[in-house]
C-alpha cells in the first residue's frame, strides 16, 4: 500500500470519525465543547505553523481571534447588515493589514521581537474592545445572526458541529498542502538553518511574514465562526489568558506537524472542561485551571519541547526503525 493510499485512508477515517460523533454524543453541552475543539483547532493550526516552522511566537493571538469575532458581530448587525461571509472577509482583511504592520518590521530581525510586539498588541486590542463604544464595551455585542448556508440555518448543536468541523478540515487540508509543498520545504529548511536556507535562495523574512499573516487569517476565521456559534462576543474571551491558552494548545499538540493542532486543541479543551466539572464538585480544585495551564506549559516545554504528538510519533518511528535494522547499529 503506497503512501498516498495510506494518507487517503487516514483522512477518510478521520472525517468519518468526526462525522459520526453527533450520532453518539447527544448531549448538547458536550457537543458544544467538541464544536469549540474545532474552533480551537483552527486557532492553533496557524500558530503551529508559526512556531513550528517560522520559529516565532505570537503572544497576542487572541487579538486576531477577536478581530474576526468583532468584525462579524459589527458588520452583520442591523447597522451594517452585511452578509456573514463578507463580514468575515472584512475581519480577514483587517487581520492581514494589522499583521503586516506588526510583522514587517519585527520579522526582519532575529530575536523575539514578534513575541513582544504581539504581546503589546494583544493588550491594546483587549483594552480597545473593553472601551470603544461601537464594540459594545465590557458587555460586548449580542444577537449576532446565525449563519445560513443555502437553505440551512446553522442554529442547532448538530449543524454547528458539522459546519465548524467542515471549516476546520478544509483549513487542515490547506495547511497540509502547504507543508508538503515547495513552501513547506523552504519553511522546514529555514527553521533548521536560516543561514543555509538563505544561501540557497530562500527569502527568510518573506516566508516568516507569510506564515504570520496566514496564522492571523486563520485566527480571524476562527473568531468569525465563534461569533456565529455563540451569537455573542465580549472582550473577556479575547484577553491575554486566551492568547496563552492558544500557545499551550499548540505546544502540547506539537508544532511542525499538522495533526498536532487538533490533538492539542482537543486535549486542552477537554481537559479544561473536565477540570471545571471536577472543580464544581471538589472545592479545592476550583480555579485550578490557571495552575494547571501553567504546570502543563512548564513541564511540557522542559521535557517535551516538540509537543506530545511529535514526541510520541517520533518515538514510535524510532522503535520501528530499530526493529528494521535488527537491533544492531
Amino acid at each position, binding site marked *: 500500500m503506497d503512501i498516498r493510499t495510506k494518507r487517503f485512508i487516514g483522512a477518510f477515517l478521520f472525517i468519518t470519525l468526526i462525522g459520526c460523533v453527533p450520532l453518539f454524543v447527544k448531549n448538547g453541552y458536550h457537543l458544544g465543547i467538541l464544536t469549540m475543539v474545532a474552533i480551537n483547532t483552527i486557532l492553533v493550526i496557524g500558530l503551529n505553523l508559526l*512556531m513550528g516552522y517560522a*520559529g*516565532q*511566537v505570537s*503572544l497576542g493571538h487572541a487579538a486576531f481571534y477577536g478581530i474576526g469575532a468583532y468584525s462579524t458581530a459589527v458588520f452583520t448587525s442591523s447597522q451594517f447588515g452585511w452578509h456573514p461571509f463578507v463580514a468575515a472577509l472584512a475581519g480577514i482583511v483587517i487581520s492581514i493589514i494589522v499583521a503586516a*504592520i*506588526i510583522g514587517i*518590521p*519585527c520579522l526582519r*530581525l532575529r*530575536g*523575539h*521581537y514578534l*513575541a*513582544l*510586539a504581539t*504581546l*503589546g*498588541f494583544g*493588550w*491594546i486590542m483587549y*483594552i*480597545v474592545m*473593553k*472601551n470603544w463604544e461601537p464594540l459594545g464595551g465590557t458587555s460586548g455585542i449580542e444577537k449576532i445572526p446565525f449563519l445560513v448556508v443555502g437553505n440551512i440555518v446553522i442554529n442547532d448543536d448538530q449543524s454547528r458541529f458539522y459546519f465548524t468541523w467542515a471549516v476546520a478540515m478544509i483549513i487542515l487540508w490547506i495547511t497540509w498542502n502547504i507543508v508538503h509543498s515547495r513552501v513547506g520545504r523552504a519553511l522546514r529548511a529555514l527553521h533548521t538553518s536560516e543561514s543555509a536556507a538563505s544561501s540557497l535562495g530562500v527569502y527568510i523574512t518573506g516566508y516568516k511574514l507569510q506564515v504570520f499573516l496566514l496564522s492571523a487569517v486563520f485566527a480571524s476565521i476562527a473568531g468569525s465562526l465563534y461569533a456565529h456559534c455563540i451569537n455573542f462576543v465580549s472582550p473577556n474571551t479575547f484577553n*491575554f489568558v486566551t492568547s*496563552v491558552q492558544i*500557545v499551550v494548545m499548540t*505546544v502540547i499538540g506539537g508544532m511542525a506537524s499538522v495533526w498536532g493542532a487538533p490533538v492539542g486543541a482537543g486535549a486542552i479543551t477537554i481537559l479544561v472542561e473536565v477540570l471545571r466539572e471536577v472543580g464544581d464538585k471538589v472545592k479545592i480544585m476550583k*480555579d*485550578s485551571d*490557571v*495552575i*494547571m*495551564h*501553567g*504546570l*502543563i*506549559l*512548564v513541564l511540557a*516545554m*522542559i521535557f517535551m*519541547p516538540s509537543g506530545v504528538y511529535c514526541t510520541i510519533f517520533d518515538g514510535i518511528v524510532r522503535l520501528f526503525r530499530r526493529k528494521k535494522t535488527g537491533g544492531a547499529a
Partner: protein
Amino acid sequence: MSTIDLLQNLLFGIAQGSIYALIAVGFTIIFSATEIVNLAQGEFIMLGAMFTFWFSAPPSIDGSVGGMGLPIYMAVILAVAATSIIGVIMGWVMMRPLKKANSTTMIIITIGASMIIQGVASHVWGKDAVKVQEFTKFNDGAMVIMNVPFLKPIDGVPPQLFLQQQQIWIIGIMLILVILLTLFFNLTMAGKAMRATAMNKVGAKLVGVNVSRTVMLAFGLSAAIGALGGAAIAPIYAQYDMGGLLGLKGFAAAIVGGLGNFPGSVIAGLILGMAEAVGANYASNYKDAISFVILLIVLIISPNGLPALLKRRRK
C-alpha cells in the same frame, strides 16, 4: 492642561513609573545574566505585596484572609526574603532547560511559571484586593505638600504639588535601589561576575565564575527588587492578579530602554509612568494601552530601544 496640573501629573507619573522602573531593572538583570526574557517578573511584585500583607495584617476574625500582625518593617523584610527564595527556586528550575532550549521555549516557561504563581496566590490569599497599612502615617497620613516657587501664584497663593507619603516611599526606594545596584555591579565580586556571565558565559566559566549560581543569584536579586517594589506599592494596591499588567508595562519599559541597558530601564520606566499619568487625563479608559502603544512604536522603529535610536541619530 495648566502647568501646575501637568507638573502634578508628572509627579504622580514618577511615582508610578518608579514601579515600572524597578520591574524593568529586574528584567534587565535576568536578561543580562541569562538571556532569558522573564515574563513572570510582575509576579515578584505581587508576591512582595501579598507577603507584606500576609505578615503585617491583623489576624483574621471573620473568616476573611488575615495576617500575622507583625510590624510593617518586619513584614517587608520577610516578604522580600520569601520572594527572593521563590526567585532562586525559579532560577534553579530554569537552569535545566537553559542549556539546550531556545529562547522562545524559555519565554513560554516563564509564562507558565507566572500562571502557577498567580494560581497559588489566588488560592492562598483569595481574589479580592487586600488592605496593607501605609509605611508611615505622619500627620494622620496627610499628603505631603510642596510649594512651587517658580510658577505664578493663583489668587495670591503659590501653586502647590501633592504627593502621598507612600508615593514618596516608592520613589525613595527606587532611588536607593538604583544606587545600591550600581555599586553592586561595579564594585562587588558577585556583581562583576554577573556582568561577566552576561557578556560571555564560556569565558566567565573559564575564569572560575560559577554560572549556575550566577543564574540563581540573578533570579533571586530580581525577585528581591520586585518584592521591595511590591511591598512599597502594597498600601496603594494589592491583589493576586496585579502582577500581570504591571509586569507587562515594566517589561515594555525594559524594551523601550533597551533590553540589557540598566540606566535605560530606569529612565524608560519613569517615562512610561509619566506618559500614562498625563495620558490618563485625556483618555482615562485607555490609559493602560499607552505603555503598549509606546512599546509597539519603539519596536517598529528601533527594536533595540530608545538608546539605540538616539545613538543612530547622533551618527
